[in-house]
């Protein structure tokens, strides 16, 4: 009997039909050591039974809860985005279409230093003797260095 090969044997063990042979994979394995080993491994794997812990609808509840909160989350973001879009559109429209009745007053091009001093009330401080030494003092570079007597 010709060996169909391990891949083909595994297909047949899983119920997939084989085109070239209709004999039982177990009957073939009885005379083929390689396929017998595959069959033994297949049977050994069958020992692994799994019993899931009781669920009691917890999975359904958890999935539906998370799905609903995800939907609410998107809905909230969409509402916030819509409000922001409307508000910014309204602000832009108001800025564009509101008529300006008179030009804004501009600062004078040239400002007299004396006007600033008077406006800030500093003119009183500038009178002697309070700032006399400061205002009338010569520039620092023009001052003579103290004489070295050593």
């Amino acid at each position, binding site marked *: 009997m010709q060996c169909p090969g391990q891949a083909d044997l595994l297909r047949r063990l899983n119920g997939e039909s084989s085109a070239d042979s209709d004999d039982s994979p177990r009957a073939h394995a009885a005379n083929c050591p390689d396929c017998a080993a595959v069959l033994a491994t297949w049977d050994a794997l*069958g020992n692994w039974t799994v019993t899931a812990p009781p669920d009691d609808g917890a999975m359904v509840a958890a999935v539906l809860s998370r799905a609903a909160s995800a939907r609410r989350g998107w809905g909230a973001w969409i509402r916030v985005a819509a409000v922001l879009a409307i508000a910014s559109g309204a602000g832009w429209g108001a800025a564009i279409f509101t008529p300006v009745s008179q030009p804004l007053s501009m600062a004078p091009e040239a400002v007299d230093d004396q006007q600033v001093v008077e406006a800030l009330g500093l003119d009183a401080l500038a009178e002697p003797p309070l700032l006399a030494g400061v205002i009338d003092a010569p520039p620092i570079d023009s001052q003579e260095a103290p004489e070295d007597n050593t």
Partner: protein
Amino acid sequence: MTQRDDSQLMAQLAQGDLQALGELVKRHQARARALAYRFTGRWDAADDIAQDAFLRIHRAAVSYRPTADFSTWLYRIVWNLCLDRAKRPRLVGLDESSDPAATPDPDQLEQEEQTKIVQQAVQSLPERQRMVVLLHRFEGLPIRRIAAVMETTESAVESLLTRSYQQLRVKLANLK
């Protein structure tokens, strides 16, 4: 009342019907949990993976086209989530399915011991080999569908399967 098939439920879910999602979870959660458990060895991880899989299905419902079997698509999502999980640091230990307070029955103990050996042997396989064995031996998927789940060719699946059985043969040699 006729039972709605999976693609009808997906169409309803795409229109916002969360009851359709609940029905899909009821129908398919057992296979999603079992596959994820066999891959990870932990029920807490398996439950997380199954939940995430159904939430991905919920998110993708609008763009879902029933070109392939729904369960193939579900298995593919579970497989991708299992791969993501495998990249994280491993949790130590496997879940113990036996009840320590129960009276030890020699036959039961032997069965549990065999289960543990098989579980450890399968979980020692590299990820792709492990998933191929799980889908083939425990989920009963034909090679063609396994290739669709893992987005590869049938010959690649056959190659993975043959290599897996060669490794398992050594590890399970002493098992009855």
